[in-house]
Structures are given as structure tokens and as C-alpha cells.
């Protein structure tokens, strides 16, 4: 919670005025007027709280954005569970599982990047964790590119050239439509994440973040972890539903 209201002096001055009076001995803050504190916030805590809450509201809209695709998945898979399982069996579980691990490691390095900023670690340390996260994100996209190429060469891209030798060609095409939409939207989020992180890395390099101000890293972390969560659901729902049929 924001500390502003509770710590504001109760001597009859409005809290905001008191906090902005730099050097007020009663406000209990070592940095009563941090250069990053915008004038419409009482203190750094309230400002950080507002930013993370705003990010969470955005993430809720993202849940609904991906939610529509998951809804379509549920409906079409319910229409033909066997067709979806047969189609899913042609995805490579090894690549999918490897990418899951890559994303989980990248979530760990992201959490460490936030922690590095939070503990006022050296810019080198902060940048190190951020760059590690970006490398892992790029590795994920690289694997995705290999997989997409494989689908193109095997005529598994929905459209006039889609070919299916199995029992359920129509559900298989629906499955691959959803596969490309869901993993494509997810990959787009990864690309945007890499872009945001490039900016954040430059800011970290320029010593912008310390224990008093690290909200941009924190908020980027929230976004990155959200993208990881989406994949945590995509991996089993796309790669594993036909796994017990054996290797393709």
C-alpha cells in the first residue's frame, strides 16, 4: 500500500504540500522529493503502486484478448477431440518443451533483473539480467521460426495448400489455424517484449534504476511474466493433447 497517507504529518498541513516541502524533517523520507516523483503523486510508493496497478489493468485486457482464442479452441476441440489430438500429434513435443523451459528460465532472469534494480545493484548487473532475459526470448523466437518453417514445408499451414493424410483433415486444419493464431499472437507479444526490454536495458545502463525508483523494470517484468503464463497454457493444450498416440 502507499505509505503517503499514513506517513504524512498530521499537524494540519495537507499531506501533499508537506511531502513536497523538500527537507521537511517530519515526513520520514530520506528523499522527500525524488527527481522521478511526478507532481500528482504523494510519494514514490504511491507512484509505484499506481503504475503496477495500471499494468495489471492492462494485463486483464490481455487475458481477455487471449481468452477469445482459448474460447475458440475449447469450442472447436469440443467439436472434434480426436481430430485435435491427431493434429496435435504432429507438433514436436521436444521443441515445445524446450521452449517452455527457455521461457521459465527467462522469467527467473527477469525476476532477478527486477531484484537487481530493487537492490540498487550495479548497472552492469541489472543490464546482465535484462540481456540474459532478452537472449532467452530471442532463443524462444528462433525455435518458433524453426517450427513454423517445418509446418510450411509439411503443408500444415491452413489454406489452399493444406494437406492432411490422417483421418480428420477438417479439424486438423482448424487446429493449425488456432495453432498459428495463438502462437503467432504470443510470439508478437514476445517481439514487443524484446522491444520494451531494449529501452529498459538502455535506461538501466544509464543508471536510471535503484531501490527508490525501479517501476519501469517492475512493470516490464509483469508483462514478461504474463507472456510466460500464456505459454504455460499454450504448451500442453497445443503440443500434448495427442502425445499418448506415440511418435508421429
Amino acid at each position, binding site marked *: 500500500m502507499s505509505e503517503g497517507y499514513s506517513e504524512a504529518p498530521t499537524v494540519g498541513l495537507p499531506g501533499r504540500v508537506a511531502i513536497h516541502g523538500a527537507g521537511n524533517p517530519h515526513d520520514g523520507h530520506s528523499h522527500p522529493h525524488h527527481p522521478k516523483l511526478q507532481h500528482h503523486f504523494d510519494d514514490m510508493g504511491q507512484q*509505484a*503502486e499506481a503504475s503496477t496497478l495500471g499494468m495489471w489493468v492492462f494485463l486483464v485486457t490481455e487475458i481477455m484478448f487471449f*481468452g477469445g482464442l482459448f474460447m475458440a479452441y475449447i469450442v472447436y476441440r469440443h467439436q472434434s477431440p480426436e481430430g485435435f489430438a491427431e493434429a496435435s500429434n504432429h507438433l514436436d513435443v521436444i521443441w515445445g518443451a524446450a521452449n517452455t523451459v527457455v521461457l521459465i528460465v527467462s522469467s*527467473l532472469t527477469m525476476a532477478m533483473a527486477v531484484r537487481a534494480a530493487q537492490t540498487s545493484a550495479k548497472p552492469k548487473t541489472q543490464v546482465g539480467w535484462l540481456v540474459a532475459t532478452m537472449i532467452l526470448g530471442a532463443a524462444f523466437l528462433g525455435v518458433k521460426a524453426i517450427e513454423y518453417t517445418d509446418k510450411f514445408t509439411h503443408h500444415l499451414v491452413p489454406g489452399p495448400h493444406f494437406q492432411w493424410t490422417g483421418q480428420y483433415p477438417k479439424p486438423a486444419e482448424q487446429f493449425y489455424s488456432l495453432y498459428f493464431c495463438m502462437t503467432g499472437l504470443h510470439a508478437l507479444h514476445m517481439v514487443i517484449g524484446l522491444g520494451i526490454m531494449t529501452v529498459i536495458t538502455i535506461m538501466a545502463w544509464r543508471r536510471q534504476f535503484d531501490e527508490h525508483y525501479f517501476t519501469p523494470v517492475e512493470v516490464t517484468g509483469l508483462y514478461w*511474466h504474463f507472456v510466460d503464463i500464456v505459454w504455460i497454457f499454450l504448451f500442453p493444450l497445443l503440443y500434448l493433447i495427442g502425445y*499418448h498416440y506415440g511418435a508421429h
Partner: protein
Amino acid sequence: MSSSNGHHLAPVRLYLVIFGALIVGTILTVVVAKFDLGPLNNIVMLSVASAKALLVILYFMHVRWSSRLTWVVASAGFFWLLILFGLTMSDYLSRGWIGGTLR
């Protein structure tokens, strides 16, 4: 421990434990998917994925130490998602039950 702007500082060891749990969850999902357990496959797969998502949200995304308001907003997102799934499927699955004209 709390940094100056009111954020909780999680120990590195906790992050490593969460990371380990996420990896174990991933291995568990892949191994279970190898066997045909009927409807249990879906239940296990989604339970493990939900547990993994919860760990990421609570610890990596710091919701465990966030304000009540953040809790409410985060849960509202998933609650609304369940409304989307629930209402859509209650319509979709019940079509034709009463032999109406809407089939």
C-alpha cells in the same frame, strides 16, 4: 524486508525454489501426457498449468506482497475469463436439448 518505495524484496532462494517447482511441473505435464488417462489427461494438464501460473503470479509478479486492490484486479481478470468460458459453453453444450427451432 521492504525497499524504500514500499515493495517487498524477495530472497533469491525463494525465486530459485519457484523456478524449480515450475520445471518440475513442466516435466510432470509431459510425462503424464505420455499416458492415455481419458478425461484425467485434461484435468492433470490444466491443474498443473494453473498451479504453475499461480506460482508465477504470486511470486515472480509479486502479487503475494501487493495491495488488496492488485489482488482484486488480477483475480477479476481470471474471473471474467471464466464467465466467458462458462456462459459460452453453457449455451453451446445445451443446444438441441429441448428440440427447439434454434438447432
